[in-house]
């Protein structure tokens, strides 16, 4: 796709992009954008994960609340979150809070719905057993329900991560003075296509590395589950 001597304006030669990656992102001024983007992502995602699992578990135990809110949860889940950027902007202004709120709000729903689904799917016999054995409520939640719902919660967390990355860029792009999204839109508008490509590659790297880290964490957290599945002879 790329030749070293590419003359195309839109597809600059790879070597100059790599050079820009080094001078801008590794040693140069764009390091600050990188750091602030990751900060928004990390804080927003952590809040989203905590709220998603927390509210999911709460709704699981409160049956009436679950029945009453389920269509609205779904509405918020399919609502294309980027449309909320202008609204968040008018409410929170440009800044750290706006981005974190936006990421947390948008990325919360996949985790919440998966937590709820996973917990509802827990084998009734297990719940009865723990009830009969008189397990305290918190112990039931920690030792019976959470492990059983674990695989699905993790699937939700993974979806949330992807949503969080998208929202990180969208919020920086639309309304920001820092971050990778801001860097890319700035480069694009000033016809600095080399800079734009370097930003795109940085984004791709973030997406891929985040995904890899997630898989590693998942394998550590759920090794008992895959182990059990392997014993049963079910390939994953």
């Amino acid at each position: 796709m790329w030749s070293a001597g590419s003359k195309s304006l839109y597809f600059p030669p790879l070597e100059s992009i790599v050079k820009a990656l080094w001078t801008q992102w590794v040693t140069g001024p764009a390091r600050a954008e990188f750091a602030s983007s990751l900060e928004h992502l990390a804080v927003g995602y952590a809040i989203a994960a905590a709220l998603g699992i927390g509210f999911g578990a709460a709704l699981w135990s409160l049956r009436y609340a679950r029945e009453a809110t389920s269509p609205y949860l779904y509405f918020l889940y399919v609502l294309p979150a980027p449309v909320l950027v202008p609204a968040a902007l008018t409410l929170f202004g440009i800044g750290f809070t706006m981005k974190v709120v936006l990421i947390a709000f948008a990325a919360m729903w996949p985790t919440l719905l998966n937590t709820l689904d996973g917990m509802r799917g827990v084998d009734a016999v297990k719940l009865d057993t723990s009830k009969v054995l008189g397990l305290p409520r918190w112990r039931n939640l920690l030792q019976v329900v959470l492990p059983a719902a674990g695989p699905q919660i993790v699937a939700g967390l993974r979806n949330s991560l992807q949503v969080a990355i998208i929202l990180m860029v969208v919020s920086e792009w639309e309304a920001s003075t820092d971050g990778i999204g801001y860097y890319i839109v700035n480069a694009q508008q000033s016809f600095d296509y080399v800079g734009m490509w370097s930003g795109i590659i940085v984004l791709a790297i973030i997406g891929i590395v985040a995904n890899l880290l997630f898989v590693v964490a998942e394998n550590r957290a759920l090794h008992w589950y895959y182990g059990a599945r392997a014993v049963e002879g079910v390939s994953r």
Partner: protein
Amino acid sequence: MTVTRFALWYALRPWLLRLGVLAAALGLWQGLSAAGVIRSDEFPSMTQTASALWDQAKTATLWTAIGQTLQGWAIGLAIGAAAALVIGTLIALNSFAYNSVIGVIEFFKAIPVIAILPIGLVLWGATLTMKFALVAFAVFWPLAIQVCYGVRSVDPVVRDTASVLRLRGPRKFALVIMPSAAPFIATGLRVAVAVALIVDIIAELIGGGSGVGERILLAENAGPSVYPIMYAYIVVAGVLGVLLAGAFTLAERYVLRWHESQRSAAGERLKTYPERTEVTLAVSLSAGCWPGAHPGVAVRGAFGRVVGVVGRLEIAVLPAA
């Protein structure tokens, strides 16, 4: 209360609760605006938004915008899904191809589509082509993986039977592979339907392609006086998402009505309250490690769950789960 009336109540109660929640949420929104907790120049009241939505619905602008959004969504989804179906199947049918390509697909899948948006913008500008190209790109990778998994999950017995019967080419594809892979593909498509809409709206909101997203951006830029219109379009985007996802679920239910997963789900839907009685006997091997741990019996019945503990004669009646 007779059983029929109980069943009716059981079926209606969630919907009554839901209407109540909707009314309460809209009332709270209106109340907070009226009381001045939410400043009207930052966040319009519920009635302002509703009337803006009504005004928009009377003009052609709203419907054109919805049409443009649906256009990008449909073309992009069709291209991405068709490509994923064909390429995914071809890759999955050959182990060598599968093993060499699946890593590359996983790699591309992990790239956030937002990273591709600037490329689409410089190549095509704020056009329909830009919108559906992005949608197709976003939909292709995850769906191709799903198609691969589906095609590779064909039951070995079914596959061997097909070879014995010498089924080949298109017939094997239509009669053996597709039926097995269909539920996987359906799951992938369900996600793709939502992702396609999100990407399409991002392309409008940020890239400036025409549609609902562009309307939101224009209303935002026009300032506080048209914020009701902005929120009206945000509501429209959400409703559009729910409608598309709902339509897909209905279509899936119809197309896959023969499949085990849909048949059991249909059974679940018909069953308005639990009818089986289940008995669980639990014996703790580590009795004594927390208070009240003794062998016991749980009975899960029609209208409630009864948990009895042997040896202690404790009985608790709990509502059905």
